[in-house]
């Protein structure tokens, strides 16, 4: 299983790098989908099949489709690629790269400290996830529920425009 883990995480890292460097938005999103799928496989290998399935259903299967949907509507063409190329100068990369180097240092340190721990601790069943969600992490579930309700109401408010009928029989009266 270790070899599987290294292959998938390699794919994930490569795909994520491609997401950052692609100029065409749809190509970047496609690489992001690959990255999400490989993270799902990593979950599966580490003994969390439920999390893996949800990752694919929700992130790769629903949220990314909506992203692509919006980008399709924007109809970005060659000009978008050109402006993207002008925006991504070397100077822009400096600060994020510095932050990433710090994270990488920490990551290597943690790996070094905890080397030798097994990859798969135990397989987590769907039932256990549900039980811990509705006992230990109940507050988190409630808070995210509130956030989602707020989001729905906000979207409804933004999408709901007073309909104005421009029709000689339906509005105003006589001509």
């Amino acid at each position: 299983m270790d070899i599987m883990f290294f292959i998938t995480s390699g794919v994930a890292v490569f795909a994520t790098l491609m997401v950052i460097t692609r100029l065409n938005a749809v190509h970047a999103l496609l690489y992001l989908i690959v990255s999400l799928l490989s993270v799902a496989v990593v979950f599966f290998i580490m003994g969390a099949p439920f999390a893996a399935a949800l990752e694919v259903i929700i992130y790769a299967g629903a949220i990314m489709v909506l992203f692509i949907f919006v980008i399709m509507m924007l109809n970005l063409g060659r000009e978008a690629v050109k402006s993207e190329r002008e925006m991504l100068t070397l100077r822009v990369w400096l600060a994020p790269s510095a932050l990433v180097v710090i994270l990488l240092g920490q990551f290597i340190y943690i790996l070094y400290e905890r080397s030798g721990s097994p990859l798969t601790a135990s397989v987590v069943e769907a039932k256990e996830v549900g039980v811990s969600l509705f006992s230990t992490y109940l507050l988190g579930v409630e808070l995210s529920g509130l956030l989602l309700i707020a989001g729905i109401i906000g979207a409804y408010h933004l999408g709901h425009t007073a309909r104005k009928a421009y029709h000689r029989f339906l509005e105003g009266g006589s001509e």
Partner: protein
Amino acid sequence: MTVMGLVVIAGVLAAVISCAAFLVWFERRLLAFFQERYGPNRVGPFGVFQVVADIIKLFFKEDWVPPFSDRAVFVIAPVFVVASVLMSFAVISFAPGICAADLDVGLLFFLAMSSLGVYSIVLGGWASNNKYSLLGALRGAAQMITYEVFMGISLMGVVIMADSFNLKKIVEAQEHLWFCVPQFLGFAIFFIAGVAEARRIPFDLPEAESELVAGYHSEFSSMKFGMFFLGEYLGVTLISSLIVVFFFGGWLGPAFLPPIAWFLIKTFFFIIVFILMRGSLPRPRYDQLMGYGWKVLLPLALLNLFVTGAVVLVWQN
């Protein structure tokens, strides 16, 4: 992995693909029968080899990639639909012991794969760089996301009753009573969502040929079109066999026929229902389709889930 496992995988793959190929002829013959015509009856006995002729024709057509398209995305788009449907067949248990991957999250795996199938429509439509394709892709994305939501919810009643996501355990839980009786609402909603998911008439709005030429696959030719075509028939087979697994007791049946025969008989019954619907129902308008989904089917699916949960809870105490 054992040799037996490989044999099962190869067998399932071969059976499913040949079933989809057979359906191409079967559907045309059956539609012709409903409409008092003959249908394809020239190639071989009763025209069964029509599909071979079709495949040869598809392979020898010009494989054209439009110069205005996004080439890489255009080429990989048709692969998604076939690959995702074929992956879903891995978790179906056709009979005791005949199952490619007996996953504990089998049902969720199917939902995941069906949600990935949207990409072939969306990307195919976008990469074609064609107005009609783009409109078809937009419709397809909205339709499939909508119908996926309550496709998942309608199955949760089955999961509650079987107490498992594993397809084999779901079938075994129907030993005494098929789930189509206590879960009739779930069955009806899953069936409608399945038709929408397979993009069949009456829910084939993404490729409505009367308004959008051929929708998202207008620009595709040769085997790239063939992949979309194959994907549609594989989708019909998949949804029919899943209806059988979830609601009609899978391979269970009286002992005078082997289990696999019962599975095939039930699956073919639902495939014929799919074809009959194509021959008899008109296509709704797009806003009607979306309104019907969100305003009627989603509340019904939620109601079904709540009632099932409550009844099972009371029953167990």
